[in-house]
């Protein structure tokens, strides 16, 4: 398949996902052009995390299509090892950052970052080390290269996790509530790293509870509720002048509580 600059980086067509009887994604369509930053907001259980996890097949969708740079991610036609090979290859082009960091505790920070390029791309140890140090530098943690995750703060762990995801030179970064598990004073250091990526025009999908951050960093914001996209717009319009009552209600609750804590 040929990819042109017009090919969206991520595209979802009629994506549906059920957990048992509960339909958590009820036909989602989404187009993310390269270099764009999309924030997905919504109440707990709205399906926003499931949507993000579906994009790299951590959740297997029941219907619809997901495409990364024109290549179909979900492939119901492939079974067993054939699908395993396909999805492993696809995932190397997507960086995923989790709420609970999920750093590998038995490896140093540097090894966490360099594991995938060494083992999956066959990169020489020396080159991987240089790459790892460059990425740790970028997230401000070069001095922690030899440290183990257990000695890092939550914010530091998440910054290492971002560096780890970047090490495979992904085409898109997926952030699943990257700052939700952090103490408030540690959120900013992670947000700064994400803003840095935004300035470099990394394509990003960000599931977040941080309304101010979403408004600040993204080009497009989506409000999800009950497994559907209720409203999607530029962050300026969505946050200041939402059209839907459900969006207004959600934002009143969240912006209200956030402004009261920051006041």
């Amino acid at each position, binding site marked *: 398949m040929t990819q042109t600059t017009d090919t969206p980086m991520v595209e979802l067509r009629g994506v549906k996902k059920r957990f048992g009887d509960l339909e958590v994604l009820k036909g989602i369509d989404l187009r993310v052009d390269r270099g764009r930053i999309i924030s997905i907001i919504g109440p707990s259980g709205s399906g926003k995390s499931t949507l993000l996890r579906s994009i*790299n097949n*951590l959740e297997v969708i029941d219907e619809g299509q997901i495409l990364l740079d024109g290549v179909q991610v979900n492939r119901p036609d492939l079974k067993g090892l054939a699908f*395993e*090979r396909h999805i*492993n*290859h696809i*995932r*190397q082009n*997507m*960086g*995923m950052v*989790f709420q*609970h960091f*999920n*750093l*590998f*505790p*038995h*490896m140093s920070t540097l090894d966490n970052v360099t*594991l*995938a390029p060494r*083992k*999956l791309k066959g990169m020489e140890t020396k080159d991987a080390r240089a790459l790892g140090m460059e990425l740790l530098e970028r997230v401000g943690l070069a001095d922690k290269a030899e440290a*183990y995750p*257990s*000695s890092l703060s939550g914010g530091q762990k998440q910054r290492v*996790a971002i560096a*780890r*995801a970047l090490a*495979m030179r992904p085409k898109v970064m997926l952030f699943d509530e990257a700052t939700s598990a952090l103490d408030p004073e540690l959120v900013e250091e992670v947000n700064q790293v994400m803003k840095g990526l935004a300035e470099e025009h990394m394509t990003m999908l960000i599931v977040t509870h941080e309304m101010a951050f979403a408004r600040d960093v993204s080009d497009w914001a989506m409000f999800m509720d009950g497994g559907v996209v209720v409203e999607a717009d530029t962050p300026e319009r969505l946050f200041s002048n939402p059209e839907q009552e459900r969006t207004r209600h959600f934002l009143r609750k969240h912006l209200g509580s956030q402004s009261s804590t920051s006041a």
Partner: protein
Amino acid sequence: MEFDFTPVIDYFPTLLKGVGVTLLIGLAVALLSILGGQLVAVISLYTRKAVNWPLRFFIWLFMTTPLLLQLYFLYFGLGELILIPAIVVGILGLGFHYMAYNADIFMATIRSVSHGQYEASRSLGFGHLRTLRYVILPQAFYRALPQLSNNMIIMVKDISVLSAIGIGELVYVSQYAISITFRPFEFYITIAVIYYLINLMMEAGQSWIERRAAYRR
């Protein structure tokens, strides 16, 4: 009764040889039972019941029967069909016995590694097997270390049971020396002290390994 340790000193080279045999068997059994235990645990956890039930039966068999019986069966029972050298029977018998116990430990510690670790590895592009190899099993191993090393300390003492099939380990060679010198008391005291020293060394090794492993869990 007068103590006379002169015969012990005379036979000390023989005892040392017994110590050497005990330690070599210990090393072989440790390797076999730890590597094998890990393999058995992985197969039990990640394959279909139809595939892994013979393995589970095998574990159950080794955990529910006495070690001495297992050794007699392997050496004298199977010996009717095929002659296997005693040392091989000893290492295999003890190895399988502890493999069963170690597999149990590994199954628990593999399960204890959080699913998030698995997802993080898969999201980087690692397949199931490489995720096991680089992410899950190393963590399960570090978590298993305290119980594994306890098992290995018990195992070294169980090597004495191999004297029953004529393997020249520490207890066997001392029996031999006693049968010539008629000085059981002195010899038993001496080998008790030797076992104590071996234990002391293993415990030191255990805490060294655990100190190194603590921050990796």
